[in-house]
């Protein structure tokens, strides 16, 4: 399966402190014109015709995708129906949204697109999400909460990605409890805030700090893991370590060259959403290239080589290789200027397991049972 982060717009109704839309593409095009949208579906069809086993998961992202308005999504569906007659069943949609613009007008079209669940974010700390300052956060959160009511009434579910910033480090458990209480499905993913170059001092955190933040939560989660089924990175780690699952998110998979792409409003294709935000790893325009061309782009080849290089090099002696694969190449590129290094966030895997996971669970990785 290929995951395509679909940034059809750069427009957003919010102004979150960690969102840096510093794309290097054509900044004059804020929203993907319909001809490019149509082109995309035509290319998607061609790609799927060539690859009969392949599927595409399109994640509507932004900016804020609901800035596009319901009609935009209806057009997307029309293009899909027109161009992907025989391949449409192999294309699925997801959405990452701040939800504040969700309204009843979206319900039918989103349902028709097969979207059942939304990825979103929530922040209790003032001044991080929303239009700036406490007032901005409050207003944002109120809109957000009202949208959630409607969303749930209409039968959609949602989960959140919580971006851990400096002010959150003090009270990990408090954040965990609040978030686990806030999200009905307890589907919460903790990610560290990451910046390219601009390390905004009052919010940026180090890998060590992130590990200790997770470590402040992990014993509570482990003790009650049935109660909080969806909390990541813990859930996935337990699945990998105890149940032998080989499903890994992009940064751990060592395979993102083969699984990820992103497209911007101007039709430019990038390695992924974050790479397009940071203006790194650009592969060319959808207008000029087929998806197969892009998948064979020399920079993608480089990423493929990276995995082998790290296995025999920087990560050679590491017992966590099978569940890490050297981490995210984009982070390595941003930090060192080359993708051919392991991620500077290496400690978030190694340190967390050694310092917290193993002592709390009494299980040493790799363990012999479970796969």
């Amino acid at each position, binding site marked *: 399966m290929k995951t395509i982060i679909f940034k059809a717009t750069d427009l957003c109704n919010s102004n979150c402190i960690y969102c840096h839309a510093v794309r290097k593409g054509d900044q004059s095009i804020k929203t993907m014109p319909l001809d490019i949208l149509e082109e995309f579906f035509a290319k998607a069809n061609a790609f799927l015709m060539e690859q009969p086993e392949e599927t595409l998961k399109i994640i509507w992202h932004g900016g804020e995708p609901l800035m596009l308005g319901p009609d935009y999504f209806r057009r997307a569906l029309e293009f899909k129906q027109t161009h992907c007659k025989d391949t449409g069943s192999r294309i699925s949609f997801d959405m990452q949204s701040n939800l504040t613009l969700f309204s*009843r007008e979206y319900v039918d079209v989103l349902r028709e697109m097969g979207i059942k669940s939304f990825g979103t974010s929530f922040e*209790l700390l003032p001044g991080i999400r929303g239009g700036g300052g406490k007032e901005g956060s*409050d207003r944002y959160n109120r809109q957000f*909460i009202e949208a959630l009511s409607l969303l749930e009434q209409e039968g959609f579910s949602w989960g959140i990605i919580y971006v851990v910033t400096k002010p959150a480090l003090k009270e990990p458990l408090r954040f965990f409890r609040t978030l686990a*209480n806030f999200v009905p*499905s307890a589907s919460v993913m903790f990610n560290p805030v990451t910046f390219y170059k601009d390390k905004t001092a009052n919010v940026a955190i180090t890998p060590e700090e992130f590990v200790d933040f997770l470590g402040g939560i992990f014993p509570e989660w482990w003790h009650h893991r*049935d109660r909080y089924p969806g909390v990541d990175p813990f859930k996935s780690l337990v699945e990998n370590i105890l149940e032998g699952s080989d499903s890994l998110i992009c940064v751990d998979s060592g395979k993102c060259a083969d699984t990820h792409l992103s497209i911007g409003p101007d039709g430019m294709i990038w390695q992924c959403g974050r790479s397009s935000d940071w203006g790194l790893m650009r592969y060319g325009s959808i207008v000029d290239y087929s998806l197969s061309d892009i998948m064979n782009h020399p920079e993608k080849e480089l990423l493929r080589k990276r995995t082998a290089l790290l296995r025999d090099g920087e990560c050679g002696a590491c017992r966590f290789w099978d569940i890490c694969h050297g981490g995210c190449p984009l982070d390595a590129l941003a930090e060192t200027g080359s993708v051919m290094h392991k991620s500077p966030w290496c400690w978030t895997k190694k340190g967390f397991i050694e310092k917290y996971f193993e002592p709390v669970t009494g299980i040493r990785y790799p363990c012999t049972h479970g796969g």
Partner: protein
Amino acid sequence: MRHPALVCPHVPSLLEQMNGYDIAVRVDRLEHVSRAAEDVRSAGGVLTRVILETDQPLSTVPIPEDWAGIPVALFTPGLGTYRDLSRQIQKLRDLKIHVCLPAGNSENLVSSRILASLGVTCCLVFDEREPRWAALSDLMTYAVFGPVPHAPVEPFHHIAEHYSPGAYLDWGSVYFDDPKEYLHLDSRGRAALSRRDLLSGSFIAEHISSINDPLENEGYVKGLNAWRRLFLDDHPCILCEGWKICLGRFGFNGSHKAGCSRFAADMLSEIEQYQSQRQEENPEGKTA
């Protein structure tokens, strides 16, 4: 969505407008119960409950025979003496009457256990008065783990049966306090989200007929998840371990401080244990 049932006062002219709705009709006199049931049915409403509110202890309420076939929820301040009630137990059981008792009165915690053990469904109503948490906890354990079959003690039974780790559990509907399940009307047909809103004159519609799809009513949608706003106010409930099975109800929105939180956390652990036991005994979820 399904239209919520309407909790109406027993005003025939109002009931006549309620053709096709699910109706819980509220009366305050024993003698009016069967008449109210008849009025709902003859107006074309679907009777879900007759709610009788009395300030008499249950043992002094002479339950008439003509309630057969009428689902009654009886709100009473207490049981009175068991010896006087004993003569009515059979009727309470046969007529499937739900006895609703305020949880803030400790005697009612014992009373609920007595009634449930005799096959009478009862329901604790949580309000401003703080319950005795240790006794409540004891009753909850009985309700969930009592080894001998007994009638439900609500809300514990409902929580034990419906809790799922991936969801909130709002159980206010066990005493008609959940706008997803019930809207409350006054005699003019004005609609409120709860009995409390009704009494304080806070309405979401001037007449129920204006609410076709409740989700189109702004006040309704706002009120539905009003508890979620607690997250914006740094409210003590949002950190509570038992939040997902309480949503502020046990402790009257956290006004009872720490006691409720300990209770709700204990309850959550017991429910988890109950469900995993049930799962072990019946792995495929077959019902007996």
